[in-house]
């Protein structure tokens, strides 16, 4: 498999040298600084990375050291990855919003000697846990603000390190040729990066990826979506997440396209509009937020605009997807759609920054069919993929023109998928991981003897299309007390498709019926409250409002009707629900950093509420500890109401199955 990657391009530093030679004058990286987009060409990036690597070497970074990278998407942090790889050191990106404790765990577990961080916030966090990091020697930082008076014995600005390296390279010819030799000495089988999983289940694990496998995987997808050096992507998702490393680093180096870093974490949507990327990835929740924003602004628009929007969105719904998929569409439909493109879809995509997008992906969780087809009907080539860190992202992806909202597509080229007897999806792929860092036991548990990786997801191949369908985490699919199948995520996702519901947590395994806890979406419900003159002083008050309860109850009833349509899920209708008084938060450990709910933990934390859901009481008191962003703790207490919802009677099965 690895033989597809040639020896002179089997590591990322070697690819950088190649790109600087082949596309030297083409843009490689952009970043908005003081309100102006700054651009570096491939030749400049190579120059910066070499100087940086020389500087790091002079600071003491050696082959196979680990270097932590903590911060937002900034050019110098991406160059930290490359510079470390040039020296044969292993970059370990860490989520920038991790609290000090999580950060300490990863840095200690990965034995990091050096850390490249964004700013004072990250420096403070690391210094606060330095007693747990005996191996950590030096910190380098990108943003000097506030750090002037710090003790600089073990602290350096990245700019200074680069300047120092550049000076040393200029003065010492031997150092320059040593660095070239060091880059050439890198092998495809070397560890390229260690990515820590977000830890949906317990402590996060370090996924070790090798250079040649990363590059082989990226080559497949670059070919699959025909990406090239003229493409442009926006980097705004956490650097520690496999998706960012794959899309904005591995694919960038292989295809030599340009990656633009957002100005700050909060400016992503404005930057998206300014950059107009051709390749775009976003988790479903971002697409959802974009749509919610559009809908809210449409509510405030004039009558004419609103009518026009409604009419042409209707036209798009009828013909848009068919046109995108290349299916036959009546001439009048095409004509109307063309008019809509001129008047509505074009300007709308322009406002969202999606005008130039050639390929867009979404993944991470299920996307609502309505949401998915909304974007596709506008002419956006949005597709779903399925993957995980252990696969270096891709397992399956939807090919152009074969899009079904409820499947994640067929296996990618060179990926082999097998469904285990218990329904679990197993795969073997070009990018698959080498091992979990310092955890052979877990590695052994995850790999089958014949070299397949267990995904932990239950799924099956759709008989009609041959595409993979994922239902739930294999271990999460449970049974009600009467034996009815209970797929919690399936129910939660159906609920989350309603704009008012931000998060839903379903319970039912080993119980008599299904009950859910709901988090309302403050933007959507808040805007509804404003339009309906509902007065509220806080999230808690809005969440407990009787009218909000009525609205959510209606959403759940609709969900029940849809669950009742399929005999397999008809028994899993929701009987009772409550609306939580606070948003589930990663700082409290209720959701992971990638916003996945930790169902078991939530159940423990809100035990009195779970009890109330099942003992028939109309309300329950709850007091919970909350953690603020700086790590301090406080507590919130509330009285939460519980409501019953109507279910659709399940018809007795028409005779026993043969």
């Amino acid at each position, binding site marked *: 498999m690895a033989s597809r990657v040639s020896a002179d391009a089997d590591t990322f530093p070697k690819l950088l040298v190649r790109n600087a030679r082949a596309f030297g004058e083409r843009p490689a990286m952009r970043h908005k600084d003081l*309100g102006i987009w700054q651009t570096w060409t491939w030749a400049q990036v190579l120059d910066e990375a070499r100087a940086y690597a020389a500087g790091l070497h002079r600071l003491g970074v050696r082959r196979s050291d680990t270097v932590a990278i903590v911060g937002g998407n900034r050019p110098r942090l991406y160059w930290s990855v490359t510079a470390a790889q040039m020296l044969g050191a292993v970059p370990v990106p860490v989520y920038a919003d991790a609290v000090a404790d999580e950060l300490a765990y990863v840095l200690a577990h990965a034995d990091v000697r050096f850390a490249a961080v964004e700013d004072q916030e990250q420096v403070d966090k690391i210094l606060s846990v330095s007693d747990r990091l005996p191996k950590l020697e030096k910190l380098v930082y990108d943003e000097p*603000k*506030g750090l*002037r008076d710090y003790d600089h014995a073990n602290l350096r600005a990245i700019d200074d390190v680069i300047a120092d390296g550049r000076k040393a390279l200029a003065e010492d010819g031997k150092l320059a040729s040593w660095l070239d030799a060091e880059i050439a000495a890198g092998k495809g089988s070397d560890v390229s990066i260690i990515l820590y999983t977000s830890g949906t289940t317990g402590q996060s694990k370090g996924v070790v990826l090798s250079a040649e496998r990363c590059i082989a995987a990226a080559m497949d997808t670059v070919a699959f979506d025909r990406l090239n050096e003229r493409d442009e992507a926006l980097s705004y998702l956490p650097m520690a997440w496999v998706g960012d490393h794959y899309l904005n680093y591995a694919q960038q180096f292989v295809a030599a396209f340009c990656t633009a870093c957002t*100005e700050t974490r*909060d400016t992503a949507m*404005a930057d998206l509009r300014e950059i107009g990327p051709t390749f775009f990835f976003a988790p479903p929740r971002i697409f959802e937020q974009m749509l919610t924003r559009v809908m809210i602004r449409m509510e405030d628009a004039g009558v004419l605009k609103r009518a026009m929007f409604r009419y042409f969105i209707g036209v798009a719904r009828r013909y848009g997807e068919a046109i995108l998929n290349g299916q036959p569409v009546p001439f009048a439909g095409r004509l109307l759609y063309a008019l809509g493109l001129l008047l509505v879809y074009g300007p709308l995509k322009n406002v969202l920054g999606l005008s130039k997008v050639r390929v867009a992906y979404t993944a991470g969780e299920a996307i609502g069919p309505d949401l998915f087809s909304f974007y596709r009907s506008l002419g956006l080539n949005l597709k779903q993929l399925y993957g995980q860190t252990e696969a270096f992202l891709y397992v399956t992806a939807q090919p152009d023109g074969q899009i079904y909202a409820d499947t994640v597509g067929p296996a990618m080229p060179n990926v082999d998928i097998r469904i285990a007897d218990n329904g679990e999806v197993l795969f073997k792929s070009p990018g698959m991981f080498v091992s979990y860092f310092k955890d052979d036991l877990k590695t052994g548990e995850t790999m089958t003897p014949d070299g397949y990786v267990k995904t932990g997801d239950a799924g099956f191949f759709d008989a009609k299309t041959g595409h993979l369908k994922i239902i739930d985490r294999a271990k999460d699919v449970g049974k009600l007390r009467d034996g009815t199948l209970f797929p919690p995520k399936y129910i939660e996702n159906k609920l989350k498709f309603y704009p008012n519901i931000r998060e839903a947590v379903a319970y039912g395994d080993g119980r008599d019926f299904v009950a859910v806890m709901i988090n309302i979406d403050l933007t959507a419900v808040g805007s509804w409250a404003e339009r309906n003159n509902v007065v509220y002083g806080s999230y808690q008050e809005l969440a407990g409002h009787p009218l909000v309860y009525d609205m959510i109850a209606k959403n759940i009833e609709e969900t029940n009707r849809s669950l009742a349509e399929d005999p397999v899920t008809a028994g899993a209708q929701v009987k009772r629900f409550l609306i939580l008084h606070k948003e589930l938060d990663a700082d409290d450990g209720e959701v992971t950093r990638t916003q996945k709910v930790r169902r078991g933990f939530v159940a423990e934390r809100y035990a009195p509420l779970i009890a109330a859901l099942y003992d028939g009481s109309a309300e329950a008191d709850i007091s919970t500890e909350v953690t*603020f962003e700086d790590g301090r703790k406080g507590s919130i207490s509330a009285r939460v109401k519980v409501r019953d919802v109507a279910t659709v009677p399940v018809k007795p099965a028409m005779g026993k199955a043969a």
Partner: protein
Amino acid sequence: MRAPAASDIAAGEVLLSVEDVTLSFGGVVALRDVSFDIKKGEIRAIIGPNGAGKTSMLNVINGFYQPQKGSISFKGETRTKMRPYDAADGGIARTFQNVALFKGMSALDNILAGRTLKMKRGWFWQMLRIGPALTEEIEHRKRVEEIIDFLEIQAIRKVPVARLPYGLQKRVELGRALAMEPDLLLLDEPMAGMNLEEKEDMSRFIIDVNDHYGTTIALIEHDMGVVMDLSDRVVVLDHGVKIADATPDEVKKDQAVIDAYLGVAH
């Protein structure tokens, strides 16, 4: 005529001193014989119960009110009468207790407005927007972008301030005051009505402004925790009279201050 540059005054020396200031509105005496000084480079807090005369004091310092008695020396120049325009031109900037921004303008334009006094070209040149006027505008915009970066408000650069939450409006207001590159910055309750997180952010920005730009700051604040953490010295006013002037630790122990805040039986 511009006041002498603050750079002539070394850090730690007196930048502004208030001597025997008395201010009254008809029969109501807002300030009575108040004297204190502000040293260059320090963060000076003015505290006191409601109606103690804190905001009146700031208004006297920046020339909005004319005291009946007493004088004010700023950068070595003594004066009894001054207009707010002269104060601003002389290097005194302020923020207000209730946000006073141009609501319909973007955050960027509001901060740019703080550069008005620094603009050398007249409105006609600016309207043409060519040659020197353009060069100057670019220079001003650069300064404003530095402030936006400093206050971490890039995401709201082009948002009309009326649409911003209160905490961010306060930050934009601080940005506008900073755009004047003041020698003395007067902050009137910069953290009123903020939640804990916003207060912490604002505290950090105040310390950073003082640290990074070396700006002398006088602030009025009710949150005692904030005052004690931020300020170098504290003046305490009660019913228009100065009752204490010391370091935060000393003020905390001062019986007169405790009485003023908690109230005593007369």
